[in-house]
Structures are given as C-alpha cells and as structure tokens.
C-alpha cells in the first residue's frame, strides 16, 4: 500500500518526480496544437516540472522534424511554430500506451509492498 510518507516525500522534493525525454515531451506538447519554441518550453515546464534548455529543445525539434513526426509552419516574425504530423501522433500514442502499461505495473508493485 502506498504510504502517506511516500506521497509527502515526492511533494517535499519536486525534483524526484521529474521526467526528461525531450523528443517525447515535444511531441506531447504539440499534441494539443501548434507551438513555437518559447511556448513549448513553458508548456513542457507545466507538463512535467522540467523546462528544457533551448539547445535541448532544438536538438529534439531537429530530430523529430528529420523523422517526419513534426513539421514547421509559416514563421510569425522570427518565431516559427511547429505542429505534430499524423505519423507523430501515432508514435506519441504508441509510446504513451507503453509508458501507461509501465506506470501501471510499477505502481501496482509499489502498492503490493
């Protein structure tokens, strides 16, 4: 069973719950609509508590674009928004389903202790 002490530990130290997988976070951020770099950083910060650095973000954007999982839109002044492609949505869904199974199994094991 999950004890209140475990919950308190995570709440007292937010860094314990951070998740960092920049390409997946970028895909997840774009899942609800196109965004430019700065908006992605803010959104990812809200999603998982970790704001990726600009270098990390554009490293992930370059590789996701190369895979055809995201695509650029017309620039707005000097900022360029990106949107997720159909293939990117399919990949994101598959990875999140795997993560969901993993999370469920991990939490069940913790609660069985």
């Amino acid at each position, binding site marked *: 069973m999950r004890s209140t002490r475990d919950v308190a530990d995570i709440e007292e130290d937010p860094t314990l719950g951070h998740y960092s997988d920049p*390409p997946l976070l970028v895909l997840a951020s774009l899942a609800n609509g196109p965004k*430019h*770099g*700065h908006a992605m950083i803010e959104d990812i910060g809200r999603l998982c508590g970790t704001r990726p*650095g*600009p*270098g*990390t*973000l*554009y*490293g*992930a*954007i*370059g*590789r*996701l*674009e*190369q*895979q055809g999982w995201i695509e650029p839109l017309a*620039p707005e*002044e*000097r*900022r*360029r928004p990106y949107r997720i492609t159909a293939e990117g949505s399919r990949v994101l869904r598959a990875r999140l389903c795997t993560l969901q199974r993993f999370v469920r199994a991990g939490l069940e094991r913790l609660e069985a202790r």
Partner: protein
Amino acid sequence: MNTRLAHALVCLYPGGWRQRYGAEFEALLIAGPGLSIAANVVCSAAREHLCPARGFDLNATGGPLHLLSARAPWALFGLAPVLLLAGAYTIASLILLSGWRIFLPQASSPFVPVHGTAILYFGVGRLLYFIAPLLVGWGIVLVAIRLRANGPWPVIGMVTIALLGGANQIMAARSVPSAMGHGRMHVAFELSSAASCFGLAHAGTLLAFTLLPYVLLQAYRVRLTLY
C-alpha cells in the same frame, strides 16, 4: 539574453543547422533568461557537430570528406592517418635532432638528463612523439562519427595507428663513436618491439583510448537516431 551573446552562441552550431534554425533559435535565446542557458546551448552545439541531425549537415550532402569516405574509405581512414602520423614523427624527430645539436653537442645521445630551456625544447618534441598516435586516432573517431561512417575502415585505421604507435622507436647515434661525429636520428618500426610486452601494452593502451570514445559516440549516435 544579450543580442550579441545570442548571436555568438548560434554561431557555435554547424552551418547547415544555422541556415535552417538559426533565426528562430536566436529569437528564442534573446527572449530567454540569459547566461544560465549558455552551457545548455554550448553542449547542444557540440552534439550537433558530432552527431548532426540528418538533412542539416552540409558534409552529409556531398562535401569532399563525405565523397572521399564513400568512394575511398581506405584513403580517408587508412592512408591519410598513417601519413599524418609519419609527419608528426618527422617533426618530433627534427625537434629532438636540432635540440641535440643546440643543447647537447658533446653528448653521444639526446636521451640524457637536460636542464634549463632544453627541458622545454625537448619536452615539446617528446610530447608530440607520445601524443601523435592519440591525436591521429581521435581524428579518425571525429571524422568517422561526423560522416556516419559505419564500415570497418575507421576501426582498421585505429588499429593500424595503435600498432604503429606501439611498434615505433626513435633511434639516435653518431656516425663516429666519439662525441665529434655527426648525430643521426631516425624513426624505426620494429616488429620485435611490437611483439614485446611493452610494445603490445602501448599499442593496446592507444587502441583503448581511441576505440572506447568511438564505441561510446556510436552508441550515443544510435540513441539519437531512435528519435
């Protein structure tokens, strides 16, 4: 962030990457929090040089090194490193030979204790002699990773350089046994030396220091291409 600093940070990236993302990335940096993100950008720029995203690397679209890697990998990863190593050994030998004549005209060998300025002079030659195989080996690693060369030639080149580095010896002698004769120096590659424990250990160490970064960078590159 300061506009000039942002521009300088963008300049750290490869040309192809800058053409594609430079303007929007610079705008993002200018709107960012400042120096605290500089380290993140520098590390990412280094990664783009080592493992560039496909399609944004000018070398990967027909640069001379890429063409040479595709058409004559033996020349790029085999012949060129050996020639570079030979050049480095020649320069090291010339430094030692000139130092022998300048600082030790009476000595029968340059491999004797020296003092003062001679320590620095001989030190440069010895440093070049000992690190040349490592520098050439790391050069093979960087070029192979940068060009995404997957064939056996980079490893063959590294093994060749390590064996040459482990087997070579600098020999010095005077033409007349007395101290009045002219000094001669040459680099020799002796199989007996390579077969000895010391030669093999030296070659093995050189190979480990070049092959290990190569394997790690290849693994890192494969991890990046999973996305």
